[in-house]
């Protein structure tokens, strides 16, 4: 075979610039990319195969490990899908707690995004600040669920535990902390002229591609389309909360960054509302013995707005005590493969990492 014309650059899997364990095979001429091929599969653990051998509750522990930065939306979609098939009505308080958890997870993941976006452009201080501050949210999680990362908290039939005493106050305190802290982030990241120069007009997702590829989340909203599953296809108690869907029109990295910046503030406001409105009552319904718990045959598709966009869980029960099929749809499933390959063509080598971060590429939810 004749040697190729363009130079091959292996962007990952072992590369500081890649988000997670995946690979982009770049063909470059000069510092312009002429072709990009995404290769995934480095994280394939076959969850969807493993659930065939696990009962409904055991499967639940696998579910949260689909995506590392934000396990809760996945737990939530699974729990809701199970509830849909089994016809379980969960208490009102559980729904509010779930919203709180989901928004905390959203905050934590957005802080990680701050880190990733800063890191991808060489601004390591941003990552140090935001990941360091993220620990305060993880502390809340730890207090509530006992774990920092994999909470296994949003349970079919409600949530696993109620709030500990004084938890609401501590949440509010953390929110206060972040509200004081966010101007610093603005100063460091969003008002930095170099950051603006590096992101404006870079990594533009074509408006036609947006609908064609089924782009979701911030890339969609950064193109000026006001779409959010939390409102469009509302779940839990999001319809009882007042919040805004931030949009931008640039459709570049900068626009997506601004959308995320606004979303972080929206999340704080949602959490404040939840703390103010949360009703008293039960936090879950009693489930039967997990080993013997069977769910009537049927299927359900539950979707939710994760941080990087729409996620969904397609769950099929054949009437047994184990799921027949659980198929997860991650936001990055379209972003990371077909869309990224298109967006990267013509981009600069220097921007690959930033574009990936901006699209919210997360390999574990592609290959599961």
């Amino acid at each position, binding site marked *: 075979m004749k040697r190729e014309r363009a130079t091959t650059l292996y962007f990952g899997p072992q590369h500081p610039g890649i988000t997670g364990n995946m690979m982009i095979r770049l063909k470059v001429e000069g510092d312009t990319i002429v072709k990009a091929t995404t290769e995934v599969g480095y994280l394939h653990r076959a969850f969807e*195969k493993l659930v065939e051998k696990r009962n409904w509750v055991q499967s639940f522990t696998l579910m949260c490990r689909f995506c590392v930065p934000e396990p809760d939306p996945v737990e939530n979609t699974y729990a809701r899908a199970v509830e849909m098939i089994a016809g379980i009505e969960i208490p009102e308080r559980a729904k509010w707690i779930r919203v709180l958890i989901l928004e905390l997870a959203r905050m934590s993941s957005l802080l990680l995004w701050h880190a990733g976006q800063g890191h991808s452009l060489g601004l390591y201080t941003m990552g140090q600040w935001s990941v360091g501050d993220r620990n305060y949210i993880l502390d809340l999680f730890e207090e509530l669920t006992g774990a920092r990362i994999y909470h296994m908290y949003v349970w079919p039939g409600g949530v696993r535990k109620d709030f500990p005493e004084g938890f609401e106050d501590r949440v509010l305190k953390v929110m206060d902390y972040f509200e004081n802290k966010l101007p610093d982030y603005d100063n460091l990241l969003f008002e930095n002229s170099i950051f603006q120069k590096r992101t404006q007009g870079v990594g533009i997702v074509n408006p036609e591609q947006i609908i*064609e*590829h089924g782009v979701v989340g911030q890339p969609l909203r950064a193109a000026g389309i006001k779409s959010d599953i939390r409102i*469009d296809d509302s779940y839990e108690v999001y319809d009882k909360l007042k919040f805004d869907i931030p949009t931008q029109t640039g459709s570049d990295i900068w626009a997506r960054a601004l959308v995320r910046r606004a979303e972080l503030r929206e999340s704080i406001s949602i959490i404040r509302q939840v703390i103010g409105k949360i009703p008293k009552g039960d936090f879950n319904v009693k489930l039967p013995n997990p080993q013997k718990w069977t769910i009537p045959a049927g299927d359900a598709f539950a979707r939710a707005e994760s941080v990087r966009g729409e996620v969904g869980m397609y769950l099929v029960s054949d009437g047994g005590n184990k799921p027949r099929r659980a198929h997860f749809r991650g936001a990055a499933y379209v972003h990371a493969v077909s869309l990224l390959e298109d967006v990267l063509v013509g981009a600069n080598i220097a921007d690959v990492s930033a574009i990936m971060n901006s699209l919210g590429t997360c390999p574990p939810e592609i290959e599961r």
Partner: protein
Amino acid sequence: METFLEKIKDRISVNFELDRSSIDVERKRVDVQIKKEQIPSILRYLKENMNFRHLMHASVVDWLEEGKFEVLFMLWTPKEKIRVFVRTKLDRDNPVMENLDMIWPQLNTYEREFKEMYGIEFTGLVAPEEFILEDWEGPPPMRRDFDTEAYAKDVFSERIGREDAQDVRETIAKRSGEVIPDFAKKHSR
């Protein structure tokens, strides 16, 4: 709402010959089942004529007992907020289907996955051979007749000690000489 869903169902069934159809009012969902040959045309019809522009998800379920694969496409319209599930059954022994990625480019990724995980052939699919697995020699792993546990036992050796360390707490206690009180014992599992 119910009439609206009925209307959509009717509109589909006028144009296409459905095997089965149902509506679910609570979840705002219309379910149709159709022959695999009509899948491209119905998807295109739904997308272009009925504004179901958003493909939420596509999935495959292996009904081993029936000898069928069920392939389904989940569509959504942001305007009316209604879901349409289009299903089709493929013969499990000869799962062949037409390539659909010109309707939604993202289906290309889905098809690559289904091809690898279930062995479903999509005629006309242009994509690299491998997607997730590398140098996989066994049967398509997501098929229900593939036993992952047996495969794992066969290929990877399990670490010794896993089987008797079922009760983690007790094992740790035994190792460290800690005495577990009786009341705690029953919660230890």
